[in-house]
């Protein structure tokens, strides 16, 4: 048995880890209570099996690539970092990338991850044409929008609960360069931030970083980052068309004492961060895709800054209509509490693609929350606000929401469960997350 956790390092769970080397061995590995695991970047308990965890990162082969269509067939353990490094020099990038590139394709499908372009271009699943799935009852099926569509739409965003994703066909985006033309907008409060995001609907990429320490009239003070793929003629003379992605040079070597991040150190940091950003506001500049899409990837093992106890990430989405009131209330509670979260990310989402995909048209707010004190009770109260507004929580980030919150947020759950039952009548595929939220007890 091996102690395993997600990226948030909470919870830590004992599980049997298996690392099959062939698809046949994957089949042999599946027993009651199994789930596939990619690179372990889901924050909570999504990629930990109820009994067994099947590590898929060894399946890292590309099967085929057609530069005429951008169609890429690959094994599920290939990481997005690998796709970017391999295909960017050939003029292709994934259509959708989340905030870290160190995720597998299988994981990206299972969580239907979204990026800074979800408001206009949808999530990862929208660019997946087909999935090779090993179902819980042992069949290996190809699922697409035409063939086995039920399995396809349940697998996109299905948290790995429809079976083991073995391979997928996805489309890549042709790009002229690996650079992003970025514009920074500073917003003095939440209203201004939301207005800036609304105005940024036409931008390919948009996201806001909110200073959670700012209170009162400054509540929701933000920097908004808009981005477009840069053309070759927009690059500085001498800049290569495709910047190199550096491996994390700087890594957090040890668990920092949990007092490192406190309201005073963070207040100072945020003040500096906001002012430096605000100085750049308004102007356009061209940045490498790596810092633009993956700012935290440059610091290895950054999850250690929250100390040994780990942290939670609370990411909700609130439907557009009631969003302003609820977001204001959440941010007010967070800033008044002081130690809950220091920085939040706000972004607009569009329609989700899979049955259990997280996105819905509205605003998503992501908070990093160090695990301490009565923080769980505090988050339960925030959940009540989310549910009342018709919102939901992102399963890839979740380690603690209640069944009631989950069921209220995901109305397609009964249909998902029916499809899952048909694919896995004996209940072989089960994660700690599904035990907590889905499965009959």
């Amino acid at each position, binding site marked *: 048995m091996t102690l395993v956790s997600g990226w948030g390092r909470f919870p830590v769970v004992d599980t049997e880890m298996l690392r099959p080397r062939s698809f046949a061995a994957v089949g042999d590995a599946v027993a009651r209570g199994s789930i596939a695991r990619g690179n372990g970047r889901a924050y909570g308990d999504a990629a930990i099996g109820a009994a067994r965890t099947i590590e898929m990162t060894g399946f890292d082969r*590309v099967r085929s*690539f057609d530069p005429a269509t951008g169609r890429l*067939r690959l094994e599920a353990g290939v990481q997005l970092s690998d796709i970017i490094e391999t295909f960017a020099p050939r003029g292709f990038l994934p259509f959708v990338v989340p905030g870290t590139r160190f995720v597998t394709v299988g994981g990206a499908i299972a969580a239907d991850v979204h990026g800074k372009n979800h408001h206009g271009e949808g999530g990862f699943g929208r660019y997946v044409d087909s999935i090779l799935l090993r179902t819980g009852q042992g069949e290996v099926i190809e699922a697409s929008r035409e063939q086995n569509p039920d399995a396809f739409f349940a697998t996109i965003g299905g948290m790995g609960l429809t079976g083991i994703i073995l391979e997928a066909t996805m489309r890549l985006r042709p790009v002229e360069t690996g650079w992003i033309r970025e514009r920074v907008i500073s917003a003095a409060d939440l209203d201004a931030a939301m207005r800036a995001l609304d105005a940024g609907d036409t931008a390919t990429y948009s996201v806001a970083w909110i200073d959670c320490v700012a209170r009162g009239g400054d509540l929701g003070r933000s920097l908004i980052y808009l981005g477009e793929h840069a053309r070759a003629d927009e690059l500085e003379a001498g800049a290569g068309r495709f910047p190199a992605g550096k491996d994390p040079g700087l890594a957090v070597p040890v668990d920092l004492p949990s007092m490192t991040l406190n309201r005073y150190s963070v207040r100072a940091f945020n003040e500096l961060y906001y002012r430096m950003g605000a100085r750049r506001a308004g102007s356009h500049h061209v940045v490498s895709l790596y810092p633009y899409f993956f700012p935290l990837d440059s610091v290895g093992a950054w999850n250690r800054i929250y100390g040994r106890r780990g942290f939670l990430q609370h990411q909700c989405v609130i439907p557009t209509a009631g969003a302003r009131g609820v977001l204001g209330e959440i941010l007010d509670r967070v800033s008044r509490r002081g130690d809950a979260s220091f920085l939040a990310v706000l972004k607009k989402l569009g329609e989700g693609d899979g049955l259990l995909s997280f996105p819905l048209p509205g605003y998503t707010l992501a908070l990093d929350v160090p695990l301490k004190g009565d923080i769980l009770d505090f988050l339960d109260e925030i959940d009540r606000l989310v549910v009342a507004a018709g919102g939901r929580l992102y399963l890839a980030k979740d380690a603690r929401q209640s069944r009631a919150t989950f069921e209220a947020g995901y109305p397609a759950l009964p249909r998902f469960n029916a499809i899952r039952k048909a694919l896995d009548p004996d209940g072989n595929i089960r994660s700690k997350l599904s035990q907590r939220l889905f499965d009959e007890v």
Partner: protein
Amino acid sequence: MTSRKTVLVLGGSSDIGRAAARAFAKAGYDVGLAGRDPAALEPDAADLRARYDVACSIHKFDVLDTPSFESFVSSLPALPDVVISIVGLLGTQETAQADLAHATTIMRSNYEGPALILGLFAEKFLGRGSGTIVGVSSVAGDRGRASNYVYGSAKAAFTAFLSGLRARASRGGVHVVTVKPGFVRTKMTEGMKLIGPLTVEPQVVGDAILDAVEKKNDVVYVSGKWRFVMLVIKTLPEAVFKKLKF
């Protein structure tokens, strides 16, 4: 296409073999993958072609079948620019202590086979007047340890062979690289207790091999830490060394 450089990887289905093939293909080499089970190499060949738009061929090669070596080399469509042997077998030390057949297999897989095949390529390369030979040996060959001296002694012999070959071949325009990876997270080491800071991913070794070939390095410890660790281990007096459990 004929102007492209070519590399032949013996032991192409191993994790380090796959990583080395990727590193060379990424650098623009056409690749030959050689292994016992050609069908098992097909997915890796397809991977290289799809990723890097290079040519990739597959060859049947069994390191224990030494009588076939001459025909293996002569049947290659062209002599490669670079040949890399990643073939090896860790085996089980405890079994090898009493089971002569197992000990023999370890010795032949890590020394006899790799040395003979690379020696054969060296003759061909010297005849041509160019080429690079890479032997993946092991830090285990730097000093025989209680826990793996059957494997270690075979690697020591292989290291010595490469050293002599390098001295001789360098006068004929042929370069020989000895690579000592240290701990690598691979199929071979799965389940072993590896020391985190001394352990690298296979791709790090693959990239280091390409780098050593391009820079014409002689002996490469993939991580500099290993050069230091093995220096300490090599200089310990035997009286102390024999009391160590590792």
